[in-house]
């Protein structure tokens, strides 16, 4: 698929209105899924669906952005763009999963956090920052997969994990192509050029070492065969989670820290920066 499509065609594929969403995957992977609501502070964010269910014989926490397919559903789900309450719900449930030893799966599909006045008033920056910081402390396996759009800090707030995977025709970017064009050209109409330069395809991210695995989609894209796409996702998630379940908790958290601490070392950064500096050496 990715061989023949332009970068912009891939962006359109990642945003395809018939692309399987979190709900389409979770109904196939976790048939007894029980949704849990609310951040216990003020609200429930419908842009993030979260809950528990039986996955390969054990209870797991699944959460993900839900974009909505009809206009009324999209309005309700806010196109998968979370408010602060969504990040707070995610962390509340991550702590709960840690309490009971449930592995966590995050399926990311968002253009970004909601760029609105209310989100700012209720502390969206600190909500995302707090989530990113908290994920490093959750002592159970965490695996994230970008299933459609992975946009900016809003996506990263759900994707600080032990393994990060991408569906083949999904994108993951520092900012949406429109936002990046608006920043560097002051003109969001330059979105195609921005997308081409940003290196946001699954192949790019795999090459950079930002994701561990790209999950092949049915030919024609995930939207042509939900069952096949869900099977591929399920197998890849299981492959990622299983070895993590065996791992010592302290080691798991140490490796999660190192995954991000040295994430840029694969692309030649190590030779530019010199070798890793140990905490002990820093203290001296």
């Amino acid at each position, binding site marked *: 698929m990715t061989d023949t499509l332009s970068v912009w065609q891939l962006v359109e594929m990642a945003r395809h209105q018939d692309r399987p969403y979190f709900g389409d995957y979770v109904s196939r992977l976790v048939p007894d899924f029980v949704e849990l609501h609310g951040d216990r502070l003020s609200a429930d964010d419908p842009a993030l669906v979260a809950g528990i269910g039986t996955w390969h014989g054990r209870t797991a926490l699944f959460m993900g952005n839900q974009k909505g397919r009809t206009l009324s559903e999209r309005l309700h789900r806010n196109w998968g763009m979370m408010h602060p309450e969504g990040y707070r719900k995610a962390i509340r449930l991550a702590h709960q999963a840690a309490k009971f030893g449930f592995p966590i799966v995050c399926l990311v599909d968002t253009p970004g*956090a909601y*760029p*609105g*006045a209310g*989100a*700012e*008033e*209720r*502390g*969206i*920056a*600190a909500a*995302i*920052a707090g989530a*990113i*910081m*908290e994920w*490093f*402390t959750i002592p159970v396996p965490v695996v994230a997969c970008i299933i459609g759009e992975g946009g*900016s*800090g809003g996506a*990263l*707030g759900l994707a*600080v994990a032990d393994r990060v995977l991408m569906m083949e025709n999904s994108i*993951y*970017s*520092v*900012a949406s192509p429109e*936002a*990046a064009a*608006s*920043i*560097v*050209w002051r003109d969001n109409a330059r979105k195609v*050029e921005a997308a081409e*330069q*940003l*290196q*946001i395809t699954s192949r*790019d*991210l795999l090459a*950079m070492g*930002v994701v561990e695995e790209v999950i092949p989609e049915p030919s024609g894209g995930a939207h042509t065969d939900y069952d096949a796409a869900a099977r591929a996702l399920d197998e890849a998630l299981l492959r990622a989670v299983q070895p993590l379940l065996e791992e010592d908790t302290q080691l798991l958290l140490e490796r*999660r*820290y190192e995954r*991000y*601490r040295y*994430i*840029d070392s694969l*692309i*030649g*950064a190590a030779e*530019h*920066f*010199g070798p890793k*500096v140990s*905490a*002990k050496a*820093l*203290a001296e």
Partner: protein
Amino acid sequence: MGADAWLALLADPGSWQERWSDIRPHDLLDWKRPKPYEDMIEAAREEGLNEAVRTGLARIGERPAWLGVFDFRFVGGTLSIVAGERLARGLEAAAASGVPYLLVTASGGARMQEGVLALMQLAKVNGAVGRLHVSRTPFFSVLTDPTFGGVSASLALMADVNIAEPGAAIGFTGARVIKQATYADLPKGFQSAEFQLTHGQVDMVVPRTELRRRLIHLLELYR
């Protein structure tokens, strides 16, 4: 105000010891339009600027402190791989030694020209901030104009004490983008330091002229 001016204002004279100034940005994505990233880096270097974050050890009122200071003049103070690396090393060093960490921010967010690797710096630095907290080392953050995007959504608001400069614009999404996206009329003072104080995001708003004295007092209280 540039990083050099902040250091002159906050650090005891002659106490600044810069670290890791030799690590330099590279055009890893081969970014060409509208301006080649290489040329942007070179132009900033010719102006004597050394990346968007400088880090090192200093004394403030005779107490040692690790400093991470953003410089908005370097590609808008954007968080890059080098900036993230310097911040993470400083935070780790502070955590290992128990020497308090002082951050001064001025940033438009993550650096577009480094793509998703710039986004990954949010996780890199917040992981290190988490370890700083676990080590029970004091962390103070001074938010100056402007502090947005990937910097407000990573370490800027995660300190023990968040201090904003009067009138500084602080937020996640810039007002221009919010207006474009939502067609909303934004109230006067939206995203100002005072707005963030009212909305519970910062502990205090302190003018530049009183900042050093306030930091010396805080270093004393959190000793």
